[in-house]
């Protein structure tokens, strides 16, 4: 028995050390980014498990594609060809407009980002943390991804990349309680910030002045302020407006355009950077860091 009590007492010092150590780890992880490489290292170790876990869902889609009937495929093909034709027609118009737009902008002497490159990535898993809204993608720094890139699906903005490992990356959705995205109303041009609140079908817009010109159905696009999200991508539409009588503010709830809970293929945007050095230094640092962080890992 003596031995056992000694053992228990012998554990006190290691446990105190580990408690202090984990608290300081959390502090450093919260405030600084020094631990990114540790996180990336562990993430690489568990990435086979992530693939393993996502296998059943993926094989489900393979099987359903394999057994699809001929008729349905023909129908689908016809439908897609039609869509393609319509989209092409629209695109022709778009290109003319784009060219015209650039020409006019050149005339005005204001240069502006024209087109962004995208990388197609697939959803690997959704992080099982009930307090956060994070997803894992199957592309990483080897495919040219880096921290801070915007992620969209075919309907609108989904979120931004927050951690990259060589072959996978973590994306914080715009509905994460820690996320805020600078937006602009298309109709009124009003600029504001939309916060996530943990629900995939809701964004919050807080503290608009009581006289703000908004109504239900207003479309929000990214404003491009802050330099994280490129401008003019659709974000959400206003679904509900609340007047806060006591404080004289308006707050609103918006429904995200992107299908945050069901998109499987997403696009990671590689912002088009001007060769001319007109951008602010802050905007410069984000793309410039990319090759460094890629070589680090």
């Amino acid at each position: 028995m003596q031995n056992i009590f000694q053992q228990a007492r012998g554990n006190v010092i290691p446990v105190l050390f580990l408690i202090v150590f984990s608290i300081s780890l959390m502090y450093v992880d919260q405030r600084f980014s020094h631990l990114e490489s540790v996180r990336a290292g562990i993430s690489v170790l568990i990435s086979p498990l992530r693939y393993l876990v996502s296998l059943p869902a993926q094989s489900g889609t393979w099987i359903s594609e394999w057994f699809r009937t001929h008729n349905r495929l023909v129908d689908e093909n016809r439908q897609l060809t039609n869509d393609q034709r319509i989209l092409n027609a629209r695109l022709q118009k778009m290109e003319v407009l784009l060219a015209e737009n650039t020409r006019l902008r050149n005339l005005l002497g204001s240069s502006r980002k024209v087109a962004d490159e995208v990388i197609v990535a697939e959803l690997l898993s959704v992080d099982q943390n009930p307090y956060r809204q994070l997803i894992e993608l199957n592309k990483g720094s080897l495919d040219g991804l880096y921290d801070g890139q915007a992620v969209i699906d075919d309907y609108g903005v989904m979120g931004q990349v927050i951690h990259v490992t060589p072959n996978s990356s973590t994306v914080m959705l715009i509905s994460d309680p820690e996320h805020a995205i600078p937006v602009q109303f298309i109709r009124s041009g009003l600029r504001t910030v939309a916060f996530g609140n943990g629900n995939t079908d809701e964004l919050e817009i807080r503290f608009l002045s009581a006289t703000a010109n908004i109504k239900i159905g207003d479309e929000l696009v990214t404003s491009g302020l802050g330099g994280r999200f490129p401008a003019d991508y659709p974000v959400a539409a206003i679904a509900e407006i609340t007047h806060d009588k006591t404080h004289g503010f308006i707050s609103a709830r918006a429904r995200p355009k992107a299908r945050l809970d069901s998109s499987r293929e997403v696009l990671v945007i590689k912002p088009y950077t001007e060769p001319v050095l007109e951008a602010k230094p802050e905007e410069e640092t984000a793309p410039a860091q990319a090759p460094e962080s890629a070589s680090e890992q």
Partner: protein
Amino acid sequence: MIGLNFLVIPLSLVLGLVLMMIPLPEWTEIYRPDWIALVLIYWSMAMPQRVGLWVAFISGLFVDVTLGTLLGQHSLALTIIVFINLNFHLRIRVMPLVHQSLYVFLLLLINQLTVVWIEGMMQREPPVMAYFGAPLVGMAIWPWVFIALRDIRRKAQLS
């Protein structure tokens, strides 16, 4: 002394991690038992000389990366409950399974409270069931976890 048989310990921890990753409908998330905690409680009870604080701490780091929480959040919680368990393991080992389940519920609750409080410190408000849901489910499955791991341990002839 460390032979191939000892691989069952890390393998059971890896299995626990996989069980924590498997996608389930969103509303079930707060009821998902902390599998790693259950596995660690078993091994630190059965083989305290092999599975101790450091194993708990490192497993916690893996859980943190898996769940996208702060590095150290689950390490802290798991270290605390394994420490408590190391001090009581001789008394708990001989208890009937039902009594053990109650004790395991307490440990899981401490684990959960630590994690939820840290979330709360970062201004994220968890639902009330986040405190009790997972520990209750954990308590309910403890007897099966215990029996399964005990049989594995006996097959692997670890003592």
